[in-house]
């Protein structure tokens, strides 16, 4: 009897302690949101909702608008996802299904090491290696022959939305790759064998079994990568060109929310500072909206997948 009640009170203490920690996390998130909101009130009061759709960023005239930054963040991040997801999922499938054992470990290790490289180093590599290669090897030829397409319109200088998208895609590959590999590993062996035994090819096996079983997980991995890309600061600011303007062409410069905050925060004051903090708040909201939407889609996918199997 005595031992039982001792166990219960310890359980209760543990429950209370873990509840406390959970509330601390929630409290910190709310505190962050509250401070951002408080500091952005001057900008909110001056600009209101027009802040979201204004394209000017003028510290001298004190006219600020977030539209080019929202555009830049979303475009560079989605471009990164567009490039990274096929690469990562393909690599994950290769490592798990096709790679000979002696290749598995080094390739997966190297891919995961990409995550350990600091953002600033990526930025430096971007300036000195990636941008010249993209400019001379990809952008200039494309502009020459396909420059009439708005997406590829010149002039080509180097730092561009494309450069930012490509650099970001390299940075998020390890995240999408490792989660995809985990998800792929959860596929029951007998299901794979079942397809093969029915005469399916390797490709059909992958497409049917893995596609159906793993889609929610891979989608989750994509959202993880997207989250990283949305908030990435230093690497983006070093290759995107830092121009607060919206262009149709991927070869033109752009700006992102995190980049403008990193660049201008230190010397900003007054209304400019408040506008930068408002952009920070918007970034937080964009991330929240993307994650909520992803959760919604994810739960639908899981429901469909569980019904299918």
């Amino acid at each position: 009897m005595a031992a039982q009640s001792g166990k219960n009170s310890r359980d209760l203490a543990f429950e209370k302690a873990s509840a406390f920690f959970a509330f601390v996390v929630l409290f910190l998130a709310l505190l962050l949101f509250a401070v951002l909101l408080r500091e952005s009130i001057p900008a909110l009061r001056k600009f209101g909702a027009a802040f979201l759709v204004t394209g000017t960023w003028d510290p001298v005239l004190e006219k600020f608008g977030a539209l080019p930054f929202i555009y830049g963040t979303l475009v560079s991040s989605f471009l990164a996802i567009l490039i990274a997801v096929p690469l990562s999922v393909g690599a994950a499938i290769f490592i798990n299904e096709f790679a000979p054992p002696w290749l598995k470990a080094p390739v997966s290790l190297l891919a995961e090491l990409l995550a350990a490289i600091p953002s600033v180093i990526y930025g430096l590599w971007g300036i000195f290696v990636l941008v010249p290669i993209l400019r001379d090897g990809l952008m200039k030829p494309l502009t020459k022959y396909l420059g009439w397409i708005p997406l590829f319109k010149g002039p080509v200088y180097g730092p561009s939305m494309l450069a930012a998208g490509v650099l970001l895609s390299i940075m998020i590959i390890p995240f999408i790759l490792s989660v995809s590999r985990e998800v792929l590993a959860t596929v029951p062996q007998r299901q794979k064998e079942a397809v093969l035994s029915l005469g399916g090819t390797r490709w059909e096996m992958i497409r049917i079994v893995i596609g159906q079983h793993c889609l929610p997980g891979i989608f989750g991995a994509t959202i993880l990568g997207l989250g990283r890309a949305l908030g990435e600061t230093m690497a983006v600011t070093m290759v995107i060109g830092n121009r607060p303007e919206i262009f149709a062409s991927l070869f033109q410069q752009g700006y992102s929310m995190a980049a403008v905050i990193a660049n201008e925060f230190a010397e900003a004051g007054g209304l400019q500072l408040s506008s930068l903090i408002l952009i920070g708040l918007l970034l937080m909201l964009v991330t929240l909206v993307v994650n909520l939407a992803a959760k919604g889609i994810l739960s639908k996918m899981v429901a469909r997948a569980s019904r299918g199997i």
Partner: protein
Amino acid sequence: MRTIFGILAGTATAVALSLAGVTGATAADPLTINGAGATFPYPLYSKWFYEYSNANPDVRFNYQSIGSGGGIKQITAGTVNFGATDAPMTEEEMKKTSGPILHIPTALGAVVPVYNLDGVANGLKLTPDVLAGIYLGKITRWNDPKIAELNKTVTMPNADIVVAHRSDGSGTTDIFTNYLTSVNTEWRAKVGRGKAVNWPVGIGGKGNEGVAGVVKQTPGAIGYVELAYAKQNKMNVASLRNKEGHFVAPTLEATSAAAAGVAKTMPADFRVSLVDAPGKESWPISGLTWILVYKDQKDEARGKAMVRFLKWAVTDGQKMETALDYAPLPKAVVEKVDKALKQISFKGKSLY
């Protein structure tokens, strides 16, 4: 029992000794003076603090190069003993301080246009209107007649001009835009002056290193960086036509000449701009950098130490400047600064 007593006694002694050390600052302890501010003079101040502390071990300095804006904020808040800035405080900013603040000029810097153009060597000639035209996006090719007519001995390539500017707020941008605002009415109307502005065209690079990086990596690029930066990175620099109509190359001498040109009309508070300065040899995009100190010091010892250091800085310290690619203050200015230092006082008594 004995060992426990021994441990207790030992701990008590250690605590007592350390308390004595904390509460009683002996005469041998060096006085620490804290400062924060501009990044531009940081290499110079580092050298100064090192040399000065070697010669005067009773004083130690601690400087955080957080930017001119940060320096102004911290001296206003009183968290540091002195601030440092490349852009003088505005009237509004000076109202927020707890007492009158002095701007003590320490060194001169220059902002220079740098470029990366195949086949064009150092010394491309530009005029204020051409430079403004490039940065306004109106002159877009290197072989534009307006540039070609200034450089008849050079075959200008038919290439795009890629404009580079600062993406972060900085004193360098303030000096550069101040210059363009002073010499070009269209720039004044469209863009204006500031630590950060709404650039009509161009790629933004973070810091002097960012702009230098863009220029070096992009054929056909033009940017603006601090003179020290251009020199140390061996970049091609443009000569500008100054107020007197003379084409001047950006050198330390030309920078000092700009200050000498303004020395006679220098206001007593030294809050003057050196852009477009008169004088045949003056470099038109020059600027002062200042140390900010309160006129009424709250701490006599530190105030006295500050005044002694500043006196040294504007006299002996100036000798170290050219080696670090800063331009020394001209003698006329040094004399005025010396007089200004006499104003720094503690409870009404001058600490000079």
